[in-house]
Each structure stands twice: as C-alpha cells, then as structure tokens.
C-alpha cells in the first residue's frame, strides 16, 4: 500500500490534483456548515450547473475556463440570494429554476458546436487530469483567499447563520455577510467542479458538515470536524480512484457517504 502511495506521488498531475483537492475540500467543508444550516444546501448544485454552462461557453469560445466561470457563478450566487429575499420565488424553487435552465444552456451550447465529447463529460463527472499548471496556481490563490476571509469573518458568519434577524437588528450588516458567503461558495464550487464534476460538487459542500453535525454539538467543533472529515474523505477517495481507476468524483462522494452513515449510526446509538 505504501508502495502504491509512493507511485501515486510520482505523477506530477496527481500532486497538483491533491493540493487543489485538499484546499477545495477545506473551503467547501467550512462553507457547507453555514449553507446547510441556512437551508441553502442546494445552492452548490445550482451554482455548479451554472458553472457547467459557463465552462461550456468558455470551451466553445476558446477562453480561459476559470476566468469565465468564476464571475458568472458569483453573479448567479448573488441572484439566488436576491431571489430568496424577494419572497416571490422561494429559495428552493429559484435554485431548481437556475439548475435546469443553466444545464439546458450548457448542453445546447455544446451540442450545437462540438457535440458531446470527453471534455464535456469531464465537466459533468470530473477528472483529476483536468487541472493545468495555471489552473493550479489560480486555485491555490483563491482557496487561500476563501480560507482567510472565512476565518476573519467567522464570528459574523456564525451570527448571521444562527439568527439573521437578531444580527441585523443589532447592526451587523447581514446582507453583506450573506453576499460574502455566496461569493465564497461560488468560488469554491467553480474550483471544485473541475475535479468533482458538476453533478457531484454539491456533495462536497453538504456531506462533511452533515456528518460532523451528527457527532458534534458546537458550531466551532462542527466546523473543525467537517474540515477534517472532508480532507480525509478526499484523500481516501483519490487513493481508491487511483488504485481501481474509478472516477474521482464518485469515489470521493461514496467515501463521504460511508462516513456519513457511520456518524448517523453513532448518533442513533448514543440517543438510545
């Protein structure tokens, strides 16, 4: 097994994938806690579909994928929040609208131009080979920005997540911090979707936090445990995917699922 791991590290693309993957897992686990508790679990799904459309357009028009996808996703995230506040279309419905709409645009763009090829497949289901050197640099930079912003705003993010009305009433600019959460989520989703794939990225946001919530009782410990679970699941998933040539995204999600089930059983046993 150790030999296998050493082999794995001899490929430079593997090292790149691991670095970016660990950073993205970190960011998504941090943000996931807030999103799940704010009942925004599906926002990752919505954004990743928008990201897919954006990548398809970037691919067709020969532009840098990340440079197009990030601004479009950020915009979509703000839009989702606005829709949520307006109360005319509720959050889940707004997400569903955006999800299917963006997917349709993406598929249409691709099929009208190049047809469904492996590149598109990679966007849908993720590929560890998708990261180029420049992608890695952008990903590392942005993940670190997400981490720093999250840590700096941690008390405020807690306040806005726990009780937005109270936070607002006592002078915390909750709209601004909601925007920050949306912004950070959008960036994380775009970074992660190359590797995890459009269809699986939202699980990276949701699973670790939900697992952590089964076994921890304070916000801080949930956040920390979610991060640990997320990073470990990622590493195990990547190893399985390398060992059995399985798709990376699915491997990681299945590992996450197993961890979640273990945490669930632990919680149930404890309640008894």
């Amino acid at each position, binding site marked *: 097994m150790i030999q296998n791991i050493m082999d794995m590290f001899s490929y430079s693309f593997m090292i790149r994938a691991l670095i970016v993957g660990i950073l993205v897992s970190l960011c998504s686990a941090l943000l996931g806690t807030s999103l799940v508790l704010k009942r925004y679990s599906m926002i990752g799904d919505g954004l990743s579909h928008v990201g897919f459309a954006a990548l398809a357009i970037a691919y067709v028009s020969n532009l840098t994928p990340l440079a197009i996808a990030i601004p479009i996703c950020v915009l979509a995230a703000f839009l989702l929040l606005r829709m949520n506040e307006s109360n005319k279309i509720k959050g889940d419905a707004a997400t569903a609208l955006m999800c299917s709409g963006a997917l349709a645009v993406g598929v249409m763009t691709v099929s009208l131009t190049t047809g469904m090829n492996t590149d598109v497949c990679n966007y849908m289901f993720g590929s560890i080979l998708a990261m180029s050197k420049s992608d890695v640099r952008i990903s590392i930079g942005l993940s670190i920005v997400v981490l720093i912003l999250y840590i700096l705003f941690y*008390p405020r993010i807690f306040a806005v997540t726990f009780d937005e*009305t*109270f936070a607002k*009433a006592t*002078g915390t600019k909750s709209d601004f911090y909601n925007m920050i959460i949306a912004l950070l989520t959008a960036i994380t989703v775009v970074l992660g979707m190359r590797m995890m794939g459009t269809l699986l990225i939202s699980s990276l946001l949701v699973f670790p936090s939900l697992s952590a919530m089964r076994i921890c009782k304070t916000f801080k*410990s949930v956040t920390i445990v979610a991060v640990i679970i997320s990073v470990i699941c990622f590493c195990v998933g990547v190893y399985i995917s390398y060992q059995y040539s399985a798709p990376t995204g699915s491997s990681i999600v299945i590992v996450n699922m197993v961890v979640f089930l273990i945490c669930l059983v632990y919680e149930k046993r404890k309640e008894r």
Partner: protein
Amino acid sequence: MSVLTCKDVSFSYEGKEVLTRVNFELNQGEYLCILGENGSGKSTLMKGILNLKKPSAGQIQTGDGLSQTEIGYLPQQTQIQRDFPASVMEVVLSGRLNQCGKRPFYNREDRKIALQKLKQLGILPLKGKCYRELSGGQQQRVLLARALCATKKMLLLDEPVAGLDPIMTVELYNIVKELNQKDNITVIMVSHDVQLATAHATHILQLGNSQLFFGTMGEYMNTELGVRFMTGGERK
C-alpha cells in the same frame, strides 16, 4: 429626554397601509407593553423599531445616548435555531458583535461580559451545553442573555413566552421585571397573554392598525377599551 420617539409613524406592505400614525415617547426605565390582536401591526412596529423595516411615513428616533444598534432583541424562536449545533457560550457571545466594531474576533472583555450575563440569569452551569438540547425555558434565557450582551439600555421582546409552560412563563416575566427595576433597562414587550404581560408594565400601547391607546397603565385601566381588553380573555 426620551430614549425612543415615534412621530406619526406609518407602515405599509406593497402600498397597503397596515399601521397608521403611531405616536409615542418612552423614557429610560419605562416598561411598555404593546397589545393588539393578530394582524394589528404589532410585529410590524417591532420591525420598525429594530430598523428592519422602513416606515412609509413619520420618524422613529432613538435618543438619550441609545444608538439604533444597541437595542437588545429577544425574538420568537424559529425552527432553524432549534436544531442548530451551537454551544450556549457561542450564542451569547454573538450578542457582543455590535460592540466589536472592526475587530474581527471577540476579546477577553467580551467573554467576561457574556459570562456575567449568564450568571445574572442563573444559567452559568449551562455555558458549555449544546443549545438545541436545552428546554424551551432555558433556550429563552440564553437568548435573553444574548440580548443583554447587545445592550445596556433597551430590551425588545417579541412574544417571549410563546411555547413556554406556565411556570417558565411566570419566571421569565419576573426576570424581565427585575431587569427593568434593578438595572433600569427600558423594556418593550409584545405579548398575547394580557393579564400576565401587563402586570409589571408602566405603559400600554394598544394597536389595531392604528393607535387605539397610549398611556400609563393606570390610565388604561380607566378606559372602556382597557377594561374590555383586559377581561376579553374570559368569555362568559
């Protein structure tokens, strides 16, 4: 000088006026109870005072050294808070955010004050406990401690006893009374259950999409409206 002044305040939703021309003044240390039936505009006025909703006309002013962001608020519990993984200390500390200014984290002073409020409300032993595992009454005290962290001067309570059993209800009203009388904190309370809620109030504001009455408790009891509303719960 008054701590809170409402001058000809009106509120509307989508162009429809739900509350018209409310006028009142409140001084430091007074205890105002806002009464009214469902849909009479109580919650709307509450939102206005907390700066969560802009009045369509008129002005709400704070004075006497009270800034708009220094009003401690005890909300009705929402479903989302009930399953939230957070320790009591985390919740109470979040009340100190408005004192943090640009500082990103809480400092020792914030922690000291949070602990002090926990002690004052008799829930210091709960500080490491998980919020969602507490009873309704305990949760309400935690939220009250958080509100006290955010203010030294004014507390706003929105149906604070909804969902509490009778013993807890009486206890909570007693805590509020003590805060009002000992610490000279101005209290504004919206409540349904008239008899208990008004027991300690100094002033009454009754709403019914407009201002039906504002005055002291004694004056209220002498009006026909007051007598009717106070005994309204006991139908023959």
